[in-house]
């Protein structure tokens, strides 16, 4: 029951975000440039907050920034691929292969 609540509350909240400007702009003319600018900061902030802990806090939950951290190294390789290609699929595939290759290194 609690979980249904999570499903519907998260879905409702997310839908409001999606529909926000689509509905507002039915009336107003343009999204103010200043608002657009601040909105552009949301993806890098949120995505980095999701990615970085996954790379440096893996395992026992402690901070691990060393050559022994396979996920951090594979993440750096994937970041380089993302930078060069801006290709989602290539980034994921190369990152996973890097992780597998590193796990073979004793």
């Amino acid at each position, binding site marked *: 029951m609690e979980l249904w609540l999570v499903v519907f509350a998260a879905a409702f909240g997310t839908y409001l975000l999606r529909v926000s400007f689509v509905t507002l702009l039915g009336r107003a003319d343009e999204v103010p440039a200043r608002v657009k600018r601040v909105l552009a900061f949301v993806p890098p902030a949120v995505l980095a907050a999701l990615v970085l802990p996954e790379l440096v806090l893996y395992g026992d939950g402690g901070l691990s920034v060393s050559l022994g951290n396979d996920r951090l190294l594979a993440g750096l390789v994937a970041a380089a691929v993302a930078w060069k290609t*801006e290709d989602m699929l290539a980034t994921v595939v190369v990152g996973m292969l890097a992780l597998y290759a590193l796990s073979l290194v004793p």
Partner: protein
Amino acid sequence: MTPTDRRDFLAGAWDAVPTLPANVPFGFVAGAAAVQAGFSDLQAVALSAFVFGGASQLAAIDLLDAGAPLAIVVLTAVVVNLRYVMYSAAIAPYFREFGSKARLFASQFLVDTTFAIAVTEYERDESTDELSYYLGESATIYVGYVAGTAAGVVAGDAVPEGLQLDFAVPLLFLALLVPSITDEATSVAAAVGGFVAVAAAGLPMNVGIVVAALAGVAAAALTDVAGVGQ
């Protein structure tokens, strides 16, 4: 639907096919993780079908697993999806011509990939029927994702642990993160968001992602106002 609308729908559906190799496994991971966290099969699929935001679903599932209060779970999911507000603002001028019902319906499918593919096409060819094309690409992405989730619900246990499929998720975010960093202010948003998330990982009630995201946006806005690097 006129024949040209049907053509644009199919063009959209086809243009979204390259997202499937990343998108379907993403759904798979979301489905498998939800079931492991105690969601019923139906709840797990409903989560993908209604929320339709993999990053937020996984963040929410993580927090549920960690025993966070439900309000924090939902708040975190919504904050992770805050980026959809940006897409909403950017795509709104194109949606303006749609009827109001079509606008409300189309909004549900707004995610990183549907947004990026739609805007690319709208800028490339003005004669494309915006609604048909958008619904076409959304159909591919939505069906792929929800079907991936169903597969994860059914077969999540069968994937060997050694495959470390869960790592595909941060990689996917990384693929979205890198192009979102375009200048000084967006770099600050990413750096602050990332480091605060790491530093805040032990905060009570798991408010880490919420705090980190808001800190990143605030820091970037300040940088921007100060005109650093301009």
